[in-house]
């Protein structure tokens, strides 16, 4: 009978022991969650004040980051967007840290992957921001140069440069995030190569006459040079004869 009772209560006892050892972990997790929310909230409020003091929103307006945010149909202040992103990042970070307190192998594995992925997200974000600013700068430079040299389609050219750079930057960011890297590289090569090929064909066909004129002009110039040299040679020969 005792053996039967042992068999009957052993799983319950095991469950109880497991539960008793699990509860502190669970409490630690909940504590870390609460701490995370509080920490994120405090950091958010402090950062908001710091950003207001350093005129972060004005800086974003001037360098074009606000325009970038608006393109995504987000209509809050850039500082608020930044603070919200940081807030949720910290909350997720603390959730992940809290989950490690459970000491479950599957979750631990997932979390280690998450922490390994964070640097990639940061570098992709940096690539996007720096790339956007660079694309804007280069596009504007092209626009000014083209307008100053009297090029009729200056705006189209500047937009084309911006588009090409945006494609390049997006491909770089996606590659950094390791989102279907093979497909991204292939798609980028096809799109970028296609654009360059299209431009080459367009310039090639459009520039046939110009190229012909240039080549003919050079040919003519060479012929003239040769002729002049020959005439010079003849003259010198004549002089030599005179000397003789």
């Amino acid at each position, binding site marked *: 009978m005792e053996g039967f009772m042992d068999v009957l209560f052993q799983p319950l006892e095991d469950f109880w022991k497991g539960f008793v050892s699990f509860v502190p972990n669970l409490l630690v997790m909940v504590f870390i969650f609460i701490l995370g929310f509080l920490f994120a909230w405090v950091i958010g409020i402090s950062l908001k004040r710091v950003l207001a003091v350093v005129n972060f929103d004005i800086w974003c*307006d*001037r360098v074009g980051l*606000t*325009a970038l945010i*608006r393109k995504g149909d987000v209509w809050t202040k850039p500082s608020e967007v930044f603070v919200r992103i940081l807030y949720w990042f910290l909350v997720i970070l603390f959730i992940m840290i809290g989950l490690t307190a459970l000491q479950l192998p599957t979750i631990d594995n997932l979390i280690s992957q998450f922490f390994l992925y964070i640097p990639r997200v940061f570098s992709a974000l940096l690539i996007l921001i720096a790339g956007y600013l660079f694309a804007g700068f280069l596009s504007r430079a092209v626009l000014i140069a083209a307008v100053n040299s009297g090029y009729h389609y200056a705006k189209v050219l500047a937009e084309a440069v911006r588009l090409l750079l945006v494609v390049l930057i997006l491909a770089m960011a996606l590659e950094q995030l390791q989102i279907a890297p093979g497909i991204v590289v292939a798609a980028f090569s096809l799109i970028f190569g296609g654009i360059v090929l299209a431009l080459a064909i367009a310039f090639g066909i459009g520039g046939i006459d110009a190229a012909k004129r240039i080549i003919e002009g050079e040919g003519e110039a060479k012929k003239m040079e040769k002729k002049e040299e020959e005439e010079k040679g003849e003259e010198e020969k004549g002089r030599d004869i005179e000397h003789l």
Partner: protein
Amino acid sequence: MSDFHQTDPIITLHRLGRAGLERIESEMVEFSKQRPIALVLPALYTEFQGEAIKGIIEELKKVKYIREIVLTLGRAKEEEFKKVKEFMSQIPYEVKIIHNEGKRIQEIYATLDRNGLWAGEDGKGRSAWIAYGYVLANGVSDAIALHDCDIVTYNREMLARLCYPVANPNIDVVFCKGFYSRITDRMHGRVTRLLMTPLLRALQKLVGPNPFLLFLDSFRYPLAGEFCMIADVARTNRIPWDWGLEVGVLAEVFRNYSPRRVCQVDIADNYEHKHQPLSAEDVQKGLMRMCVDICKSIFRTLAAEGIVLSDSFFKSLQVAYIRLAEDTMVKYEADAAINGLLFDRHEEAGAVEAFASAIQKAAEAFMEGPMVSPLIPNWNRVTSAIPGILDMLKKAVDEDNRS
């Protein structure tokens, strides 16, 4: 108008002979291919509850040379904005509505504000300015026409005549203002008749020949709210957000362009719109506030021209104005008599007294703060400070019109 008198220094285009709406419209269709035209309509939601706007939309439906209409809707809730959008959808060409109270447009104003580019208080000036911004951002129109949305006697000939001088490449005009008479059983337009004209002439008496005063005085209806201009004017001119809008716009045109490239055109035999109460006892309301703002705008421009305005100058101005306004009243009384119109001499004299006190208030305000300016920065400066602002504005308006 039956005469063909030219007032220097601007060009005056009269209404002579047959109207010829078909001819003028067919020419406009051709001109608009070279110089596409945007029509800007500043409106309040309350105007969509009236009858005038229905007539205006009926007429606009038939117009074939307007490339886009940009309507700035003020004091409207989200639901009201949707109603207006639906109402405007009957127009067969592109119509964009700027929802002034909308979240996106308010954020645009907030962006400007934090960069030290205050767009002023809500009103016709700011509505027109933001609409110009959208036209510039859209980049499809080379000319911009503007008229109010409370014109009861609106017909499309008004619009055609207003746009014609700017659209026609053979008439080298950058800015064109409409003029008309405003009569029912009596003469209206008290501010133009009894304030603007006598004030400008009194100022000319005190200051002597002055190009700006001469320029303003050459307009038959300087306070007319209807004008058309090339898009460059919208880019380079600053606009006052207060009631001094019309005078402020003329002052900026005078400053930036030669008067030989400015014209006024007779757009209608008669013009009727919402009448405002005089509210002589309160300078913060109705016509009185408008008069104070107009006077301040003139004084500021004169000071900017280098004319010294002192306390004694303003005292003399007040006396000279009253004398000239009384003389003007006598002229209009005779004009009313020959045309069989009612003329309430007492009411007109009361208006002159009210306008005299408006001049005094404006003078006091000017002496207290001559540097206070209600001008909204021009779009060139705004885009220089915030390079992406036009893209943001376009995105905001397009999204509002999409959802």
